[in-house]
């Protein structure tokens, strides 16, 4: 890790420790977006990491941005930082202005339909998108949709949209968003760079995988700490071999999740990393499904309450594993690719997973 990466990581940790308390996460489920946390994140330049300074961003690599997201997720940060970062990458690639306000993305992935139609004095946009993260809090929606000229992107004012409140299992806003003939000037609309529409799904999957590793780290740390504190039968439950073995399994899931996402991040930076992202979303989803019940079992009844912060992480894990394609979705795709490649090329397929990184 180079110096800048280290600074970004430490800064993010510090901000989260100071400002992303358990209370802040609880309040978010009552409809309060933590403005203070958001402002600090923006002031430190974290909303535009991964966009070069020449393009108006804060510089840093894509991997740095993902480090921020992992740390934010570890603290269950209830802010649209992932969405704003992703929006800014899309905007900068499309040559549109970057956003420092809370921003979300509505694309035509996942059965959504967004249509751009060119008219004499600009464009009109219509369509609907489901489970849009933080739409009700967003001050800008980056909309990506089809047109006769190819895929287009534009910034739309959420006040011009109809928004229905929905949420995921973690109480994070996942709203339905409807756009009906919103009119935009020509210069406010731009072409999506070739290939980048599909890319959004992969980026989203990678981002959720990275966020899950943050939450997994958290539940492992909580489980270790709790097992040392909680006394039953006259000793800390950590002394029971059954508990030790469960924590060992959880540790294996966390380590696996981190290792495969690291590979996916590196591969994405080096080229496109599609296969690696598929593998990461599958494996990390599995780790979430295996790890969360272990953490709950170790915590006993207290972990099942809203009082204890464990649920802030486990509910996120249960939600994120389903967002941007769950394990089955990606496993089917990856399996198809493997079967098309054929039995005699299975091993070369596996070893090619990190050959994009060859020195």
């Amino acid at each position, binding site marked *: 890790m180079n110096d800048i990466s280290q600074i970004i990581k430490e800064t993010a940790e510090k901000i989260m420790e100071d400002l992303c308390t358990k209370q802040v996460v609880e309040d978010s489920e009552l409809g309060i977006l933590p403005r203070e946390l958001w402002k600090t994140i923006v002031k430190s330049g974290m909303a535009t990491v991964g966009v070069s300074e020449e393009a108006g961003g804060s510089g840093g690599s894509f991997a740095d941005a993902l480090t921020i997201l992992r740390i934010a997720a570890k603290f269950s940060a209830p802010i649209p930082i992932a969405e704003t970062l992703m929006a800014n990458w899309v905007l900068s690639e499309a040559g549109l202005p970057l956003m420092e306000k809370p921003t979300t993305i509505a694309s035509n992935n996942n059965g959504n339909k967004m249509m751009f139609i060119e008219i004499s004095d600009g464009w009109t946009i219509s369509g609907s998108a489901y489970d849009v993260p933080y739409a009700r809090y967003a001050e800008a929606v980056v909309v990506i949709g089809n047109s006769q000229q190819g895929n287009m992107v534009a910034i739309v004012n959420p006040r011009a949209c109809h928004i229905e409140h929905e949420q995921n299992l973690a109480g994070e806003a996942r709203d339905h968003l409807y756009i009906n003939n919103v009119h935009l000037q020509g210069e406010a609309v731009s072409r999506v760079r070739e290939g980048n529409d599909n890319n959004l799904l992969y980026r989203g999957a990678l981002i959720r995988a990275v966020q899950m590793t943050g939450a997994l780290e958290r539940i492992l740390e909580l489980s270790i700490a709790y097992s040392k504190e909680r006394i039953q039968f006259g000793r800390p439950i950590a002394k029971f071999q059954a508990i*030790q073995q469960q924590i060992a399994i959880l*540790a294996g899931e966390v380590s696996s999740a981190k290792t*495969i996402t690291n590979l996916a991040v590196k591969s994405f930076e080096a080229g496109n990393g599609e296969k690696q992202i598929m593998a990461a979303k599958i494996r990390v989803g599995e780790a979430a499904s295996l790890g969360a019940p272990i953490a709950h079992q170790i915590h006993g009844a207290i972990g099942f309450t809203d009082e204890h912060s464990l649920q802030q992480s486990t509910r996120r894990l249960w939600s994120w594993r389903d967002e941007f394609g769950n394990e089955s979705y990606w496993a089917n795709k*990856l399996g198809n690719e493997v079967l098309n490649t054929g039995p005699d090329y*299975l091993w070369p397929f596996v070893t090619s*997973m990190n050959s994009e990184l060859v020195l």
Partner: protein
Amino acid sequence: MVKSLELETIQLSQKTEQVRHQVRNFLKEEMEAGTFIPQCDSWLSKWDPEFSRKLGQRGWLGMTWPKQYGGQERTALERYVVTEELLAFGSPVAAHWFADRQTGPLLLRYGNEKQKSEILPRIARGEVFFSIGLSEPNTGSDLASISTNARKIDGGWLLNGSKIWTSGAHRSHYMVTLCRTSTKTDNRHEGLSQLMVDMSSSGVSVRPIHLMTGEHHFNEVFLEDVFVPDDMVVGTIGDGWKQSMAELAFERSGPERFLSTFPLLVELIRVLQQETTNEGGFTAVGRLVARLTTLREMSLGVAGLLEQGVSPDITAALVKDLGTQFECQIAEVARLLVSSSTRVANSRFKSLLADAVLHSPGFTLRGGTTEILRGIIARGVGIR
């Protein structure tokens, strides 16, 4: 995050990838020539001295050792790549496996000059094979409880006791034998030593123990007043525990801990490819490949740490725990996806599946059981 669980992403060099392609081409040629048919668990059960010698001739045994001892001075990652190719092809590598993987490095680190200059070059040529004498009838996981012992006599040691589950003892030339060389004290790890037993010595007898498949692989080795000369002591008398533990680090995290049933996965894909309607098959295969990729990355990460001289006990235990579960999982997935009528028509699939199922109990026992590994991990994260 618990620091000891972190692994770096390893970037292989061009040169390393070239080695891979040489090995891959060699293996394809050998397979086409009919030298071998890919088998599950071949590193334990497919013993072929001729094949081992061919690898030796190509410089693929003892790769990382100094040239003066018959090595090639290649990197640990180059060796890693060679071993993973050999295993992925299910090639017959059992004869040299222990010698190349652990005895060689053990001797390099602790052996005397005579051992190094006489034995290492022969291991690297694929001429001398080793077995590992740790377990005893009353000693399994609790290794420090061994009772095989050696008494000092003029010019050497007189060894008595017995070893069990000794893989390949009936065909190997030497056995590195952990034994007690002084009486037990409060510290059970003291007073243990490693002696290299020449299997042709008088007093050594080997009794076969057959696996449930009927294969002869295991043995019980009886040691009755076996004379072991002083210069066949490995390292220092009394340091046997420390030396054995260092040796085990080479053992736990290699590709043989997750590739033992890989040839079955290849065959599964061949079968599924012909059944275009098997939608569940795509998903199941996708999941296995995601898991395999993850394990390989972890194992490479550990290899990278070993190369830097770090001893990654916890992550090595993780690779072995998760990897051996995965080896069993391939068998289970294959079993559930392919109907018995398809198996009748595909004898190759059927026999690989049979091998994988019948060998699977061993995967999670050998080299430290699942439970023991999880204990190591628990200690590593600070709760034991």
